Structure formats: structure tokens, C-alpha cells
């Protein structure tokens, strides 16, 4: 992958991909985001935690203890690097593959695990599938399963901030499949027209469940779609943590300066299935996956740290042991926590429970229970 500058409409080579972290573990100074070793160590821990929790959640699903998991295997740098670049007062709109970034911003692991089990302590009260948690405290929007619908919401918060003259930007995650949605079009178009501080982060991971990128779009890149909205589009090596941080920072700064939104295409690869409900061996060759294994985003950061003497095998062992311990503790509590009370099904539909829901609540509570177990 070649190094290149961020592309604005009509400038630079169209397929250029921003990369920073070289194979020898050094950084290209042209786009070096200037992370301290401590920053990189923090990010590295978050990357390892994301990968390790992904594996553990898949195991829980395979054991029948949770219903579902949608992971980020191979895409961790694109997710965490971009989240790192955003500030506390900014909004993040997840797709559904970004739990690692939520944890890094401060979502408690216990809260995530409570959501995975849909128990009484789940912030969304067991109303949604696993991986559909909410965390207002860290500027994390609510997650829905339909693809692309969050894109216009991110535009809306940035729009509101602009109307109020407040310093807040939005970052919205979506995949290559979402670029086919009407909300992608509307979101980029509105943000372009009103010059809103939005970072559109497209994780091009090669696949929308079983459909490859060639079936999503006839364009050579996803970034070039930005041209049609009069906004910059940038391609970045999504498996290069430093490059992702760098282009996201620049997009954010551009938005804060009042120059409008940026579309980032983070080129990465979905190393696992779409979710625990998917078997990718049915539609793709293992050779394609192996080709990406050599560009593992986490190993590349570890090599960088080791080159600088900033990471050791002992630290790695402590880190993985610590993650496992915290995971086991959180799961033990989540699994013991009872299900949400029946009455909670009727709360939060409206601000106050109206007569028809009160009637149905009474009917449910007084009625027979299903003969099958929950979860």
C-alpha cells in the first residue's frame, strides 16, 4: 500500500491509501499522528482486549449461554483508532461492531456483559439483541440493526451543535454495505449542504454478510463517492492504527474549523463471519482470508512497541490474564442477574404508560407463562 495525502475532490491520485506504520515498525513522518508511547500502549491494550473479548463472546454463544454476538475480528484498528481521535464532547454513532471502542471510551465491561445476557441490569432492559447496548455517559448513541439508519442521526447531532454554536462533532461507523442505503446518500448530502462536523467512517471490510464489495458498488473505491457530495474522501489502511488515528484527527479538525464533513474509507477485512449466525466458508475462499492474516492490525502495533522496547512478553501475559479475569467476573455476575421484570416490557414505549399498555401489562402479569425458557 502506498503512502499518499488525504484526497480532496479533484486532487491527488484517486486510489491512494494513507498508511503510516511501515513493515519495519517505523512510522512515515508525513502522516504520523504523534502518539506517545503511553498512548500507543493504551490503544494496544484496548486492541488486545477487543480481540480477546470477541473470542470469549463467540465461545459463550457457542455454549448457548448468550444468543448472539457480532464481532470485529481483524477490524480492531479501524474501530479503535478512529474512536481514539474523537473527543469527550463528540458523539459516536455505532453500527454494531464497535464494542471495543465503547469500552475504550468508558462503557463498563459489566454493562456490556449485562447487555450480552439481556438481564435486569442491562441498560436497555433486555429489549434488544446482544451487542445493542447504549451508553449516553460516553456519547455513545443507541444501536439498531437496520443498516445505515444511524448515518443521518450523526448528521443531526452535528447539525444541532452547529445551530447552538457548540463545539461538538459526530463520528458515524458503517460498513461497505451501508453505502448502498438511502441514509448514506441523505446523510452525506445533508452534511455536505450544511457543512456539518461529521466524520463518516466507512469500514470497507470486503463483505456485507455474503455479498462482496463488487456487488455493492461499481465505483473503484468507496471514498470516491464523496466527490458527488462535494466533500473530501480519504482512503486509509484500516489495519494501520496510526494511519486511522491520523486521518480521523484531520477529518475532525476540518469539521471543527467549520469546513464540513469527511468520508473516510478504512480498508480492512472481516476475518470472521458476519455474526455468530453466519458461516463465511459457504461463500468465500480461505486464501482470501489468509492474505489478510499477514496484515493483522494488532500484531503490527505490537511489533512497533517491541521495536521501541515499550512492550514485553511479561506485560502481554499479564494483560491477557487480566482481561480474562475481568471477563469471567463480569460474566459471572451477568449470568446470575435475574431477567428483567415482566412489567418493564411496557415501560419507555411512551413517557407515561397509556391505558392500553396498562391493560396489556395487567393481562400479561396475570396470565399464563410460556412453557419455554428465555434467552
Amino acid at each position, binding site marked *: 500500500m502506498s503512502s499518499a495525502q488525504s484526497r480532496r475532490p479533484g486532487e491527488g491520485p484517486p486510489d491512494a491509501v494513507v498508511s503510516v506504520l511501515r513493515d519495519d515498525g517505523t512510522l512515515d513522518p508525513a502522516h504520523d499522528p504523534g502518539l506517545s508511547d503511553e498512548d500507543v500502549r493504551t490503544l494496544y491494550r484496548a486492541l488486545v482486549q477487543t480481540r480477546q473479548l470477541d473470542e470469549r463472546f463467540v465461545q459463550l454463544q457457542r455454549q448457548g449461554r448468550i444468543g448472539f454476538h457480532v464481532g470485529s475480528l481483524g477490524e480492531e484498528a479501524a474501530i479503535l483508532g478512529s474512536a481514539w481521535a474523537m473527543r469527550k464532547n463528540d458523539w459516536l454513532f455505532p453500527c454494531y461492531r464497535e464494542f471495543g471502542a465503547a469500552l475504550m471510551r468508558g462503557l463498563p465491561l459489566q454493562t456490556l456483559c449485562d447487555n450480552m445476557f439481556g438481564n435486569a441490569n442491562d441498560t436497555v432492559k433486555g429489549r434488544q439483541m446482544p451487542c*445493542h447496548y447504549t451508553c449516553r455517559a460516553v456519547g455513545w448513541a443507541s444501536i439498531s440493526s437496520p443498516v445505515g439508519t444511524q448515518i443521518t442521526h450523526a448528521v443531526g447531532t452535528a447539525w444541532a451543535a452547529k445551530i447552538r454554536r457548540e463545539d461538538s462533532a459526530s463520528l458515524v461507523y458503517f460498513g461497505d454495505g451501508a453505502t448502498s442505503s438511502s441514509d448514506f446518500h441523505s446523510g452525506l448530502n445533508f452534511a455536505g449542504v450544511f457543512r456539518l462536523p461529521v466524520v463518516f467512517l466507512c469500514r470497507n471490510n470486503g463483505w456485507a454478510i455474503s455479498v462482496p464489495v463488487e456487488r455493492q458498488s461499481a465505483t473503484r473505491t468507496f471514498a470516491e463517492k464523496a466527490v458527488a457530495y462535494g466533500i473530501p474522501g480519504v482512503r486509509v489502511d484500516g489495519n494501520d492504527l496510526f494511519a486511522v488515528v491520523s486521518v480521523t484527527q484531520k477529518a475532525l479538525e476540518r469539521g471543527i474549523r467549520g469546513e464540513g464533513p469527511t468520508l473516510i474509507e478504512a480498508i480492512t477485512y472481516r476475518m470472521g463471519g458476519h455474526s455468530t449466525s453466519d458461516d463465511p466458508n459457504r461463500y468465500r475462499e480461505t486464501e482470501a482470508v489468509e492474505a489478510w492474516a499477514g496484515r493483522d492490525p494488532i500484531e503490527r502495533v505490537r511489533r512497533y512497541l517491541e521495536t521501541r522496547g515499550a512492550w514485553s512478553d511479561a506485560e502481554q501475559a499479564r494483560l491477557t490474564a487480566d482481561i480474562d479475569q475481568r471477563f469471567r467476573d463480569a460474566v459471572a455476575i451477568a449470568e446470575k442477574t435475574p431477567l428483567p421484570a415482566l412489567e418493564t416490557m411496557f415501560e419507555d414505549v411512551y413517557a407515561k404508560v397509556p391505558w392500553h399498555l396498562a391493560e396489556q401489562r395487567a393481562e400479561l402479569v396475570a396470565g399464563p407463562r410460556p412453557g419455554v425458557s428465555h434467552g
Partner: protein
Amino acid sequence: MSVSNMVQAINDALRIAMRSDQRVVVLGEDVGKVGGVFRVTAGLQEEFGEERVIDTPLSENGIVGGAIGMALYGILPVVEIQFADFIWPAYDQIVNELAKYRYRSGGEYSAKIVIRTPVGGGIRGGHYHSQHPEAAFIGVPGLKVVIPSNPYDAKGLLLASIRDPDPVIFLEPKRIYRAAKGEVPEGDYLVPLESANVVRPGRHVTVLAYGAMLYEALDAANKASEKGVDAEIIDLRTLWPLDINTVLESVKRTGRLVVVHEAPRTNGFGAELVTLITERCFFNLEAPPVRVTGFDTPFPYTLEMEYLPLSHRILPAILSVARS
């Protein structure tokens, strides 16, 4: 007090809401400079500026999705969808996002928006400027659905809708935008949501109506009274959640029910109304309930006055239900 039409009354409500609450913004297609294709937002951009009265690109899902984001941030958007017929690109945003946002976030967030949209036929608008799609919103948990029939209610209900904590679909019967006139107080007042209005008390049969068809029901009731049938007309005003008590009290008293709406009959709101009432007062009923509605066809252009459930079709229904 001054005499206003519906357009003026709604405009007045928007102006009062925007003056009294800095969070309120108005957005939609053509709402700014031109003041809306029906002029409902006329003059608002002059008073409140382009940042609070926003002409948007032509994209309903973009408008509603953007408004949801604004609402999450703490702004209170009042969206105009130019015709209800054009609302469907936003239906995913309304059903899957707006209506569920509080529920699916366990109450951490709510997306408070009012969506105003003109509905109904009788203006020579054909398929795409005439539909009356309330049933598609009444069946969505989390939404409230409101429809005024006169200027006083239009102003008070819109102010109540803006100040209600839940998302509201505010349907405006465009056929009577200018035809319905009445006294409207100048200041700020509310007509409470979920309060139906008995506009004509009667003893023999209960007629449920709303929006533009209320006047057709009233006309039919006046003609029925000449034939000795005394119909009670209830303007539902808030379709959902329904003011069930007012409705049940009336039907239990009259024992007879006619429901009027412009929308197609099958799966229309009339089906739900008749079921709700029958479940609760079957043994009070003296006759089978009757629905007088639009037909199960797309809304026609040339024959629209044949399609609409006007007075000439409501009158025989009232008489036959009253006499059976």
C-alpha cells in the same frame, strides 16, 4: 380572539412555540423562504432566521433522520413532510428509529419530534396528494397520532404535541386548511392530547369522525335529525392513544355506532375502533356497527368525490344503524 383559518392557527402555534422555547426548530422542504407549499410556515424564517427555519434537501428520510439526531442532542424539531403521501421514504426512520429510540435505549435517550403533514383528499390531488395514512402510524408502538378539525383545536393540539414528551405525528386535513374558520385566542393555550370532543350531543347513534370528515358527519347528522334521528358526533382529535372513555360512554348510551374515515376500509382505523368498542360493550349494542370509509382502491383523481365518505354516504349509514 380573532377569526382564523387552520393555516393561520397552526402558523400561530409554531410562532408561539418558537418564541417560548429556543429549542424548537422547523425543518422541511420549502418551509423557509416560501413558507411551505400551503404557507403554514409563512413568515417564520423572517422572524427566527435560517438556522431555526430550515429549507432542507428533498429527502424525507434525511429530514426525519437528521431531526432524530437533533432531538438526541437536545433540540426540538418540528418537521414538515410536504404531503403525507411522500412520508414513506422516512417510514423506516419513523418506525425503526424514532418510535423505538426511548424504548431501545432503556430510557437513556428519547427522540422528541413532531412531524406535521397534510393529509386527505378533496383537493383534486390524485393518488399522491390525497392519501390519509393514519393507520400506518397508529399501529406503531411509541407514536402518538393527532388530527385537528378546526383552528382552535389545531393551535391548542399542536402546542400540546410540541410540549408532549413523546414523538407525535400531527396530521393536518388539507381540504379544510382554509375552509374551516373559527375564533382562536391570541395567546398560548393547550388542547390536551387524548381528549375526544363531543361536538354534537345526541341520543340515538354515536358517530366517530375526525379531520375533514367531521364536517360531513355533522352535515349528515343535521339531515338525520330532520328524519327524527338524533346522532351524537365525536371528534376523536387524538387518534392514538385514543380517549376510550369518552367513546365508550357514548356508545354505551346510544347502543349504536358509525365510524367514518377517508382511508381505505380494510385494516383502517375503523377496524380497530369497532373492535375496541365491541370487546368492551358488545351487550350494549343494539345494531351491528357500520364503517363509512374510503374504498380499498388507490385514491382516484376524477372520481374523488365518489371515493370520499361524504355526507351523502354517512346519512344512510346513520339512518340504517339507528333504525335497525
